[in-house]
């Protein structure tokens, strides 16, 4: 569990809830009644520092920094049971993706997640498919009588990654 924190009202980010709800529209967290159904059915509920209903409450309170720095937003297995069962139609798993996006913009990205965009940027696939690895995959497929893979159009894929704002992350990690 998170440690108890004390904050004055003027230290809270009153706009945080609207920043989130603006992007999720009808599935907004503003309707949350803190019933806890999301947390009781959550796959990772025993492993998080903040359970789903508390993440939502913290967003509503404006505890932006605490939420974006929590381990909870990255521990989720995206099983979507919270979203499925919410009686108020709050889309917690999508809100969580949004919170992760916000954390990424602040440079808070676990290494388990950042590598994906590098792999896709370099291969078009989420699995490496260049050089010797490509030769092995192709050979194995031919042996099984499977058709040759039509490679992804890397130029187009890189353009989209750059145009939507992940270009720096894809290239920065590449340089590491």
């Amino acid at each position, binding site marked *: 569990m998170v440690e108890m924190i004390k904050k004055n009202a003027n230290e809270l980010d009153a706009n945080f809830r609207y920043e989130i709800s603006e992007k999720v*529209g009808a599935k907004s967290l503003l309707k949350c009644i803190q019933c806890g159904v999301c947390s009781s059915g959550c*796959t*990772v509920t025993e*492993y998080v520092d903040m359970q789903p209903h508390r993440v939502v409450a913290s967003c509503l309170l404006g505890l932006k920094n605490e939420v974006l720095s929590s*381990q909870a937003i*990255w*521990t*989720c*297995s*995206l*099983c*979507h*049971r919270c*979203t*499925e069962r919410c009686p108020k139609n709050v*889309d917690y*798993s999508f809100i969580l*993706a*949004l919170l*992760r*996006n916000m954390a*990424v913009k602040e440079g808070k*990205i*676990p290494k*388990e*997640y*950042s*590598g*994906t*965009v590098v792999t*896709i940027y370099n291969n*078009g*696939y*989420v*699995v490496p*498919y260049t050089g010797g690895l490509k030769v092995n*995959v192709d050979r*194995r*497929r031919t042996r*099984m*009588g*499977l*058709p040759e*893979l*039509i*490679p*992804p*159009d890397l130029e*187009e*894929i890189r*353009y*989209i*990654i750059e*145009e*939507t*704002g*992940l270009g720096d*992350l894809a290239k920065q990690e590449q340089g590491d």
Partner: protein
Amino acid sequence: MEYALFLGCTIPLKLPHLEKAFRDVASILNVKLKEMEGVSCCPEPVSLQSLNIDTWMTLGARNLAIAEKMGLNIMTICSGCYETLKTVSVLLEEDKEYLAKINDILKKINYKYTGKTKVYHFVELFSQPEWLEKMKNILVKPLDDLNLAVHYGCHLVRPSKIMQFDHPEKPEKIDIILRALGAKTVEFASKLECCGYCARLQDEIGEKLVEDKMTELCELEEEVDALIAVCPACTTQYDRKEKIIARKSGKKLDIPVLYLAEIMAYALGVDLQDLSLKNRSVKPDKLINKLTT
């Protein structure tokens, strides 16, 4: 009916024997498939969506636009691809403003997504009455003596408002297919539990989930011959972790994990030697023995 076949990454690159099994089934049942040119990763619904929703949606829309150019609906063979492509198509249908924004990006590389392409998972197709009937009629090796446990996985069924795949708390489409092939399917408490593959930060989450499910299955009164999954992530997660946990804990966990198309291919007449059933951590020796005697 012809479909644009969306292979994804994990199956064609790491588990091609699953692709082979699916192609065999499609060919036996006369489902026409057309290869898609230039498609990328779906993209992967967990980490790419977490990094940037716009990148995830736009790459997904590009894949949908490629099928649209072909004039075909998409057939997926992986739950991750199914989740991404279906979610992107549903969200863009609901939000025309966002669709316009994405099309602005796609325009520069000569694509336009209008929303015509529908996204299917092969379970949706084969669980329809006419296909079940067709399978029953051409069944070569009925699975009469088999007791199978089904793992639906999360991304096929939830969130049901988007996926519209099956009942979110009591799905039965995979059970229906297996029963049409002659097998019995078992009911068990942890049937709808997550495999934990996508909980990347803590390995112990996945290990606990796999141990719980496999232990329950091994303790059922009627012996379970195999766990049947439809997602490459779930399939490998159960297979690999089951072996590791058995070694660590000393528990006798030995239920093989098969991809649905593998057991379908067998029942529809594909030779055992053409299926790579031994290509996994928990060897299905007992199952093969039962099938061949």
